[in-house]
């Protein structure tokens, strides 16, 4: 009798699971093991871990794991990818440690029928990644600079604080800042681009040196990388300077506090959670073998790739500091729900 009951329970389990997945709105359950791999350790990617867990739960994926290379070195990233392939991972979302260098690894993956996406940063065309899903860095830097110009009342001298010089996106951001400034017909000038500030100590030294030497000559700071945004917000607070306007990037608590207290005009939010969540969803569909990327999908063309999807960006200011996370969630849901129809051909 016990056996019969036990057997009945066992038979009921799949039904229960199917019902639960149905209730959760999951399209299917899969055996795929997906890895989300950043370029190296960096707080920006931290939300990918939760995004992976949520995606695994919501879409019934066997595993979506966040795997971080020990350092920001392409060879360590590629070794990690290769090791995960041997461990049975079936799809990869990768922030390319090097936009061109990653392509040979991606080709190996494709040759083994393992799909991959470039997440948060793009691989340079020609590339075998299915597409790039991330922040439109040019647009984000452009919109951030426009917001700074508005905070300055349309005129003044600004300095651009940028990330790693070896990152090709840095050049795009520099161009975007210059473009936004050039649209003011000389009312706003970019005095200087300070680069390689994506490590805390280097940023502290360079940004404080800038403020020490030129704080009376500059009116605004536009930061297009995570660390200099944090350091600039902190330095302006230490200096007690609310005259110099700062627009940063990302939503570190120090930057959000600076916005609240008037030491920063705003910050450009990116959507790392959405990148991880929708990225895992898309990879699962591609790895299942039932979906392929549409030939005529409405991708955006960027200087790096012809297959780009914007993961969303918005300006956080005092007006929406309390609600921006809901706005980002809304963007993520919108992208995810329309993703299959918009970008994929599924059987």
């Amino acid at each position, binding site marked *: 009798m016990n056996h019969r009951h036990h057997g009945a329970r066992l038979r009921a389990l799949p039904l229960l699971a199917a019902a639960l997945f149905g209730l959760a709105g999951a399209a299917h359950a899969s055996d795929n093991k997906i890895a989300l791999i950043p370029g190296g350790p960096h707080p920006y990617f931290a939300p990918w871990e939760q995004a992976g867990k949520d995606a695994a739960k919501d879409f019934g994926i066997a595993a979506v794991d966040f795997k971080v290379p020990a350092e920001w070195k392409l060879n360590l990233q590629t070794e990690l990818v290769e090791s995960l392939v041997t461990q049975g991972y079936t799809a990869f979302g990768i922030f390319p440690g090097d936009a061109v260098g990653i392509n040979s690894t991606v080709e190996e993956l494709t040759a083994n029928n393992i799909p991959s996406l470039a997440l948060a940063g793009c691989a340079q065309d020609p590339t075998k990644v299915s597409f790039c899903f991330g922040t439109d860095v040019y647009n984000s830097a452009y919109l951030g600079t426009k917001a700074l110009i508005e905070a300055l009342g349309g005129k003044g001298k600004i300095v651009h604080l940028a990330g790693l010089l070896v990152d090709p996106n840095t050049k795009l951001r520099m161009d975007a800042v210059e473009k936004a400034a050039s649209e003011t017909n000389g009312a706003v000038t970019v005095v200087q681009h300070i680069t390689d500030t994506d490590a*805390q100590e280097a940023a502290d030294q360079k940004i404080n040196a800038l403020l020490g030497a030129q704080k009376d000559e500059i009116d605004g700071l536009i930061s297009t990388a995570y660390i200099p945004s944090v350091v600039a917000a902190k330095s302006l607070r230490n200096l007690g300077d609310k005259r110099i306007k700062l627009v940063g990037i990302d939503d570190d608590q120090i930057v959000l506090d600076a916005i609240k207290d008037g030491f920063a005009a705003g910050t450009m939010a990116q959507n790392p959670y959405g990148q991880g969540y929708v990225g895992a969803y898309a990879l699962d569909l591609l790895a299942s073998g039932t979906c392929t990327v549409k030939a005529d999908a409405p991708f955006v063309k960027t200087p790096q790739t012809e297959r780009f999807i914007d993961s969303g960006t918005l300006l956080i200011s005092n007006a929406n500091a309390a609600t921006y996370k809901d706005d980002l969630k809304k963007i993520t849901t919108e992208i995810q729900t329309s993703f299959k129809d918009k970008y994929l051909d599924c059987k």
Partner: protein
Amino acid sequence: MSQNRNLTFGQRFLANEWSALAVAIVIGLVTLATLSSAFLTEFNLYVMLRSFCVVLIVAFAQMLTLAVGQMNLSVGALGGLVAIAVGGMMEKWGFPVPVAILCGLAIGAGGGLINGLLTVRTGINGFIITLATASAFTGINLGITESIPFYNLPASFVAFGTGRISALPYLLLPPVLIAIALAFFLARTVPGRQLLAVGGNPQAAELSGIPRDGVIVMAHTLSGLLAGAAAILAVAQLGSAQPSIGVDWLLMSFAAPIIGGAALAGGHISVAATALAVVLIVIIQNGMVLAKVDPYWVQFLLGALILAAVGLNRLRAVRAGGA
């Protein structure tokens, strides 16, 4: 003695290890002050002195291993580990600031002790040992933090990192005290003299009864202790315990003692010249921003100027030798 009396003032000045550095610093100061009126403002002097603090202790940490003819490639990695340990102890475990600092220093010294013991017990060069332990220390750092910094540090600790009296940052106090203590240790104490003796001629030192292995272990332990001290200052300076603290330390840790005339083979170091070398490096870094150097050429210019500083000191040594 009588020869010294016959030397001119210029020759006596040149004979000092720090003379070329002093000249370079004066040239740098005058040039930058002429280029920008903001250079000598109170806030900019504060900014430069603040940058000076951590780099100086890092340079001393490397200088001590150079003194015995060794290298410590783990100086930055150990610093990073101490930084997150101190941050974690204060944020997660609520340790009082002095306790966290003492534990941090103990971790630094412990890391150095491991380097030293592995070096003497295995007979493998410290270069290889510290290369390996650097990776291990970084691994522990990342394993603990998963690259997320500790932000919520005690207000008094963070205030120490940003506070100042006029242009003088509070942060300057520990490196000045360390420099004085180190100068005294190397010049006036038996272990300090033994350190230089082992570096100068290990065989002769051993024949004189100096415990060579013990001295090498001591050099590594002190190096680790100073790396820990530098890390704690960096945490106070940045206001958060970042896992990336120490990543950029290695170049500066070698550049300053070597510009200051330290011999890579060991036996010869100078606290004063190393400190002046750090001043020069800080002025160069500040000048880069001030002169609005094209970002794509900053690294090149920094390297070229550091090379010029080494060359200048070498020229001085040759001239002084000739005199």
